């Protein structure tokens, strides 16, 4: 059974899939060696360290956590690279099953994927009772997400899934400004990329700003989910380019190539727009999420209600059913 490490009382974290997001969350879990980290992932180092002082982190790691194990079944060198950022201390595992042995938390990273393998990747650890932080999207199918919750509960543990966009404080501040234009009737969310991960971010933005309680989903477009309409009791959110092609973003001083979202809200009192919420700002949310993951590891209780985590997955299921059928799919009918 997994327990919090007695020697240093730090929560031992096992990371599955050492993609960009693994490198992204890693410095919030435990401070790496800046030089080695830069070598392991220049892009993440770019955002997490001061431009003028590349050894000084912009965001401190959450206290009391350390990366104990890393694993990547597709490319072992990615796991080795991440381990190297911590001077080779985190053990590079050979098997999926090994990652969840002797750790207090498993993090399944997913930078830009579809979530199809999350259940498979989470199952070995969950049956051992290890809490799991699962990157977005929670799962490709709602039944997979529900299954992960069920397995966790059967084994006395818990799972959490959180999009950065659900916890970025800039959107929280923007939400308070909606009172200035109330009642809000339309939320406009242009999407950034074609993956389900990006769509999950957009749905999390809607959840962040309009709250839970999406009633129904409509979907249309020549390409799958070009446009999603999420209906709430008094308003709607339009997710534009929900799974469309990634816009071209040439890197230049004025047209930089970071991932980012600009959201607009329209209401009876006018219009308000977010600043560009992008890679420079996401770490503010990352800190909050890692703190929640720490709480998850300590309590084995979900820090976020499961229904909150499941709502975006239900929206995705509803969108699948609704797309180009010409009908609105109620979330309560999604099972």
């Amino acid at each position, binding site marked *: 059974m997994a327990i919090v490490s007695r020697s240093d009382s730090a929560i031992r974290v096992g990371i599955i899939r050492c993609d960009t997001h693994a490198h992204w969350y890693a410095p919030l879990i435990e401070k790496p060696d800046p030089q080695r980290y830069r070598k392991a992932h220049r892009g993440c180092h770019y955002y997490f360290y001061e431009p003028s002082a590349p050894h000084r982190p912009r965001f401190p790691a959450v206290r009391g956590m350390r990366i104990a194990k890393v694993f990547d079944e597709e490319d072992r060198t990615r796991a080795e690279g991440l381990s190297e950022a911590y001077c080779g201390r985190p053990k590079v595992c050979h098997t999926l099953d090994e990652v969840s042995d002797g750790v207090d938390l498993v993090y399944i990273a997913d930078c830009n994927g579809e979530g199809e393998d999350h259940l498979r990747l989470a199952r070995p650890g969950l049956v051992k009772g290890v809490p799991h932080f699962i990157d977005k999207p929670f799962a490709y199918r709602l039944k997979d997400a529900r299954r992960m919750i069920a397995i966790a509960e059967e084994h006395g543990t818990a799972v959490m899934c959180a999009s950065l966009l659900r916890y970025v404080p800039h959107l929280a501040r923007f939400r308070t400004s909606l009172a200035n234009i109330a009642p809000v*009737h*339309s939320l*406009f969310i*242009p999407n950034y990329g074609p993956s389900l991960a990006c769509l999950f971010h957009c749905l999390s933005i809607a959840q962040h700003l309009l709250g839970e309680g999406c009633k129904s989903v*409509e979907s*249309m*477009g*020549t390409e799958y989910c*070009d*446009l999603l*309409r999420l209906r709430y009791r008094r308003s*709607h959110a*339009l997710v*534009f*380019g929900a799974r*469309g092609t990634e*816009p*071209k*973003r*040439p890197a230049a001083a*004025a*047209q*930089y190539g970071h991932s980012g979202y*600009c959201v*607009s809200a*329209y209401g*009876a*009192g*006018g*219009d308000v*727009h977010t600043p*560009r919420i992008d890679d420079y700002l996401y770490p503010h949310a990352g800190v909050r999420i890692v703190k929640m993951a720490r709480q998850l590891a300590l309590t084995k209780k979900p820090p976020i209600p499961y229904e909150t985590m499941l709502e975006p997955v239900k929206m995705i299921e509803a969108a699948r059913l609704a797309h*180009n*059928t*010409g*009908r609105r799919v109620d979330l309560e009918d999604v099972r």
Partner: protein
Amino acid sequence: MIRVGMIGCNRRALWYAALMNELVPEEYAALAPASYHHMTYYQHVELQVAYARGMRVTKIYDPDARAAERIAAAFRKRPTVAASIHEVNEDVDAVLVANEDGDGSAHPALAAPGLRGGVPTFVDRPLAATVKEARAMLRLAQRNKAPLLSCSHTRMLPHAARFRARFEELGHVERGFVCGHGAQPAQIADAVELALSLFAEGFGRPVSVCSMGAQPCEVMLLECAAARGGAKRQVLIDNTPHETPRNAIWAKAMGAGPPLDSPAFDAFLQPEGGVAVPKALREMVRTGRSPMSPARLIEPTAVIEAARHAHNAPRAVPVPNAR
């Protein structure tokens, strides 16, 4: 002085009459207080908006004679209330068909007598309910050498033109968005025409459209083809019924780099687009030509008709090529 016959005695007709400085302010205030409010600002009795000079509404007509009588009293010089659609076209230099909230299906019958008589004619948005009817109106106009213009005031907004001039900042606009001001057919036409003028003109023609929502055209997704076979540009139009401040419409352009948001094209600004209509009508009388090509006249109707067919349909419906 250009003599104008006005068809349709509604608030829209009053709005255009105000933009020709034809109304007694107090009467206008009584009949259309909101429009009066937006044209006077806070301490004025007289309207403060620019108006088209040299025009006089000499005749008005509405199938509802009482409506015609009611607005006739608001004019500085009372126009003749025509007894028939034919009479309003007699002894005038131009005709203006005002539409407050209709879908354009009445327009062919209302415009036909004037067009047959070769009278320069403005038909408020939308030109017609179907492309077939719109083409028939154009043929009638051409046969009788009657210059025909139809557009929304949103197409003529100088503020929209200035917003469009900023697109260069994006390098390349990949997507557009228009948040319209309502779900009535005329309001839908306002949003569609703004979308076309911002995102289709100078880029490529609208090729397909989807529609979803509680009623046709509530949420529209338009695809425009690049002129030289490049990437298509998607334009989302939100016509959900809702209250906007001062009847505002907004637009947003997205591409590489931060998006561009328009100012609110609201009731304070919209008269600047509206005044371009009587001015254009005045020019049509002078030159005998319409300032808009047949394709531009038909295109909004083509988009809206296709969207009606596309509504809640399994896939996008092609927009007939009007160009």
